[in-house]
């Protein structure tokens, strides 16, 4: 992007002992997913953007306007920010019907009662709750409430849309519909969107770019392809389902712990090496043949994982391997059993750390 991003923020904030220090830029029409483990500071960042948590330093510029600038004592109250929020635990007004909850924002932003209600009705229909318009929040199931919250935030058509786990409480079917709906809306609207989510699928489907925070710091960011192909932390690796190890590379060889892995990529210096659990083949005895990376390991755990079994292995490097139930039966896997692990060089990826 050559144009300045719609949102340009450097969020520095404290919450008890927790310290957040994260830079965020989101372009017009761009959807950024904020991912991170529990307690990483995602909600705190979102609250800071909404004006609900003060910045202690840094800045927040939206559409060229400085909303927050602690050094210059500039601060904009939440109600004056063109920001819409879907909260993690709904926060639907209990005394208002679903319709009036959704109409609340348009009403406050100047629409008359009738227009606000008409707009709200449209949004309720779009999230599939046209029939529940008169229901009070306590008469809605968890998922219905979440969808009303979504409609309420979308109804103000904000420049910056913030969503804290907007799809978490939806059932698989509704989730698909609402995700598609959300995707359509996000595609249509010119503002910036920040989506806090735990679900990598939501992030991959909805977001143009991923920002990953851990312990208040941005640890990785980039588009889905880069992040999924080249995770840089354990958390990201598990998120995208890869084994990740950090070691020292010298051309096609990366030394990790006591093991040297041969990789297809060429790197030098500190490097990561990543490979999917499905790429790890298990053998009862040392295998011959093409796999260049072979090492003895010990089974420490076996869990069902989808149609396959995921096997945890200890050894020179700790890795996870996915095997089919048939293969598992053949190997007779149980904790403590020694096996040989093999990974083809072609299935590994190495990149600078």
């Amino acid at each position, binding site marked *: 992007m050559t144009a300045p991003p719609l949102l340009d923020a450097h969020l520095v904030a404290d919450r008890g002992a927790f310290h957040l220090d994260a830079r965020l830029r989101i372009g017009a029409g761009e959807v950024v997913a904020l991912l991170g483990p529990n307690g990483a500071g995602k909600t705190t960042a979102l609250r800071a953007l909404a004006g609900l948590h003060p910045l202690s330093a840094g800045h927040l510029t939206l559409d060229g306007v400085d909303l927050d600038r602690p050094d210059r004592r500039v601060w904009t109250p939440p109600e004056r920010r063109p920001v819409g929020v879907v909260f993690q635990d709904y926060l639907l007004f209990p005394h208002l019907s679903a319709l009036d909850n959704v109409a*609340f924002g348009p009403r406050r932003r100047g629409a008359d009662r009738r227009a606000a209600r008409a707009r709200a009705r449209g949004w309720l229909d779009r999230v599939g709750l046209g029939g529940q318009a008169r229901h009070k929040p306590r008469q809605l199931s968890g998922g219905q409430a979440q969808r009303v919250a979504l409609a309420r935030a979308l109804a103000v058509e904000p420049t910056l849309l913030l969503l804290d786990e907007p799809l978490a409480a939806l059932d698989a079917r509704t989730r698909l519909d609402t995700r598609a709906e959300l995707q359509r809306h996000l595609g249509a609207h010119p503002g910036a969107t920040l989506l806090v989510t735990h679900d990598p699928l939501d992030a991959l489907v909805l977001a143009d770019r991923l920002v990953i925070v851990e312990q208040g710091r941005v640890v990785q960011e980039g588009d889905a392809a880069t992040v999924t192909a080249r995770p840089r932390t354990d958390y990201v690796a598990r998120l995208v389902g890869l084994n990740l190890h950090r070691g020292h590379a010298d051309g096609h060889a990366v030394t990790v712990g006591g093991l040297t892995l041969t990789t297809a990529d060429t790197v030098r210096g500190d490097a990561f090496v990543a490979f999917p659990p499905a790429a790890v083949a298990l053998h009862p005895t040392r295998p011959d043949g093409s796999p260049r990376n072979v090492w003895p390991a010990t089974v420490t755990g076996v869990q069902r994982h989808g149609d396959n079994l995921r096997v945890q292995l200890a050894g020179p490097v700790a890795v996870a391997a996915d095997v089919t139930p048939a293969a598992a039966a053949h190997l007779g896997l149980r904790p403590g059993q020694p096996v040989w692990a093999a990974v083809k060089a072609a299935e590994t990826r190495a990149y600078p750390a």
Partner: protein
Amino acid sequence: MTRPARRRQRVPLPLLLPAGLGLLFLVLPLAGLLVRTPWTTLPRRLAQPGVLTALRLSLETATAATLLCVALGVPLAWLLARVEFPGRRLVRALVTVPLVLPPVVGGVALLLVFGRRGLLGSWLDATFGVTLPFTTAGVVLAEAFVAMPFLVIAVEGALRGADARYEEAAATLGAGRWTTFTRVTLPLVAPGVAAGAVLCWARALGEFGATITFAGNYPGRTQTMPLAVYLALETDVQAAIVLSLVLLTVSVAILAGLRDRWVGVT
């Protein structure tokens, strides 16, 4: 709020026993009064001209005082609950002053401020020709002074109990503090306001000391039921009991008629 739908409510004895004792303690004295009520002369006593006037005045002034307390007390409670300012703790303690002040002294204090020679009263008199003592407005003022702490404390408690994150949600939807207050906060704490208003109303209804001291006692103008009761006590305990029972019956009927609205059942 969802309430538990337990099929058979078993009430544990360590709760039932003190609850029953408490109820007995509150209700037995009433029974004592009923036993002493002169039932035969009751109709004659009730038919006396002053009774209805005093009752009507009591209900009107107590209601007016409650409205005044709500109008001033809810914002004050909001200030105490939601805005941090230096000296807040002291202000909160000062709110309880009328509660602790013996009402007669409260009446004297009101005279010192709003009386003919009072701090504000002399100015009010000179500027607007308004005198408050010995008027029905004075009764309302005296009752409001004594009853307001109940409203403020009850509403502040309700505000603190309410989840302030709803107010945050309202702010992100574009509502300023005032709109948030009227559209979100007030509806959320409505049960607390109702409970406070009931306390306030009941206290105003029973008010005696500050009223007689500040507003005096003149039938039809400032003589509320409690004043009539006290005067009756001077000569005739039974007449006082009858008047008290009238006051009680009316107020219990009104409160029971409000259904559960004033305790936050929606």
